[in-house]
């Protein structure tokens, strides 16, 4: 069964450093998403992406964040200068454009900012 994959599974970085989280969505899906979950809290939407541009973003997704689809398979989330409060689990998800629109999630990347 096709699945969303994410790398790395765990990333430790120092405050102020840039990080790039990578995702490979399901191959026939055209909508891509990033969510984050701070430990013990609910999952929060960051951004959605379609046709090589952002289709929606939340108030969390400020200028520190960017997304990109650098090639035909990868979808990345970049955090330019990490802060302690960026420590969270980051989930990538993808969905079809027609038909069943449920979002399928990857296993997540745990980001720890020290």
């Amino acid at each position, binding site marked *: 069964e096709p699945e969303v994959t994410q790398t790395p599974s765990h990333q430790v970085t120092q405050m102020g450093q840039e990080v790039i989280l990578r995702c490979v969505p399901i191959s026939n899906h055209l*909508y891509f*998403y990033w*969510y984050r*979950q701070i430990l013990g*809290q*609910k*999952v*929060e*939407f960051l951004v*959605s992406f*379609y046709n090589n541009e952002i*289709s*929606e973003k*939340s108030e969390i997704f400020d200028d520190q964040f960017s997304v990109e689809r650098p090639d035909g398979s990868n979808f990345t989330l970049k955090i330019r200068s990490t802060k302690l409060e960026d420590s969270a*689990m980051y*989930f990538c*998800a993808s*969905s079809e*454009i*027609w038909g*069943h*629109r*449920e*979002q*399928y*999630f990857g*296993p*997540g990347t*745990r980001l720890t900012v020290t």
Partner: protein
Amino acid sequence: AQTVTQSQPEMSVQEAETVTLSCTYDTSENNYYLFWYKQPPSRQMILVIRQEAYKQQNATENRFSVNFQKAAKSFSLKISDSQLGDTAMYFCAFMKQTSGSRLTFGEGTQLTVNP
């Protein structure tokens, strides 16, 4: 803006028994989807069940079923014949029907199935 509320932070059930998790939501939309996701200790988000708001019939997936009350904006999950592997955090989520819409999650309910 949509909101999703899960008023039960924790629940427990004995193996083989039935448990119901509650969810309410608020929206001005008429067409939307509702979902239950399961998050085991691995923290992977796993889709459990989906309900389209235009369907009156409640969705079922094996041991999982929902009670969808559109007028009351209520969407509960019933797990029958609970198994130890059902132990997880369960999140209720709302999504507008428009393609590419965000998921709005509730706070989650930690379910523990006891042997």
